[in-house]
């Protein structure tokens, strides 16, 4: 769960869901693209640079959707930054749909 300061100063509010890469993901880095092994399905996936960055973050530690948006915002070209939020959501959905990441519940366990 990610928290951020509210305008009131000391109050903290939850923002977005938290995601984690599933354990055992293997990543092969081939210059401009990466190939990822999904240990659950045994499928291999070729990822673009945005998905690679997001998965890389999530293999290190769980991150919130907001974290991902911030990371993508920094990585995107200036003219693309306005769509960082939608971009993050799309990448997270794609990674989740192929089973490479899971959303964590408040207890820190995978919820879906």
């Amino acid at each position, binding site marked *: 769960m990610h928290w951020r300061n509210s305008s009131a100063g000391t109050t903290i509010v939850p923002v977005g869901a938290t995601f984690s890469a599933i354990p*055992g993901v*293997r990543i*092969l880095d*081939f*210059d401009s*693209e*990466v190939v990822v*092994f999904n240990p659950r399905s045994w499928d*291999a996936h*070729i990822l673009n640079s945005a998905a690679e960055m997001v998965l890389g973050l999530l293999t290190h530690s769980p991150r919130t959707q907001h974290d991902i948006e911030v990371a993508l915002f920094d990585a995107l070209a200036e003219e693309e930054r306005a769509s960082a939020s939608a971009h993050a959501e799309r990448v997270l959905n794609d990674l989740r749909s192929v089973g490479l990441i899971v959303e964590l519940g408040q207890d820190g366990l995978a919820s879906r």
Partner: protein
Amino acid sequence: MRVAEITDAGVRERLAAKGLTIDCGAAVVRIQSDVPELAAMLRLLYGAFQIEPDDVVTDASVMLRLARGSRRVFRPQIELWLDGNRPFERYPRDTPLPLVEWGVNFALAKRLHCYLLLHSGVVEMGGRAVVIPAMPGSGKSTLTVALSQRGFRLLSDEFGVVRLSDSRLLPLLRPAALKNESIDVISRFAPDAILGPRFPKTRKGTVAHLALDASTVDERHTPAQPAVVVFPRYDPTVEFELDSVPKARAFGRLAVNSFNYEVLGPDAFDALGRLVALSDCYELRYSDLDRAIDAITLFVRRADSATTLEEPAS
């Protein structure tokens, strides 16, 4: 003793009794048969192979048997038995050799899971392997055989056998199967090459097999380090065209084209990843065989000067 050192009758006797056991490199294969004409064909094509003792453990055992019953008079048929089972219907008797070869391939593809098996030709020069994956109509066998007639050592025309521990390519030597136009192409390209009989009307059209020479067979346990992957496509409208293939794409194409990637899972992923990382990957469209060979020779020499051979895994 090499197969060619015994007579046709001797081969026939062995085939009818305990079988002809052949060490193909990455696998040992046993062939049994009571089809009399098969002996001379096998002797011609497997002549350079050593005959292994009858008690050697085999990776695949193939038996081709004359079918019994009344149809044998009017429309003779043969049965293919693999490791003691007959998984397929009977076949017409007139294609015994292609059936044995296909049966061995089928058995190995189903069983040899201690290696990653790519559907590809493989040749080697200076310890560097060139992997030539097959796509339908790609001209894989033509190019693989042509390279083997121009200074490259043949490792296989059908199986890219990848050792899981270090991704080295192992020979799996069998007579190379040429189909349709490629038979004449190779006959013109290498007039001294020894080809077996032509079998028309197989499921893949006309098929003929290339016999391997003794020096190639004697190197059947010498692996090679992956250096070049070439996705070929024979295209009569293009003399020669070459493009680099991004490694991630090459990985995907090789994985899809593997016989057992999905069986091996993470081990296959690691082995194939290492193979691709060590290789330069290209797509080649060609109709000029000589230019294709020159280009591949250049790639191998370039790889030779760019990297040192890695020590193989123990």
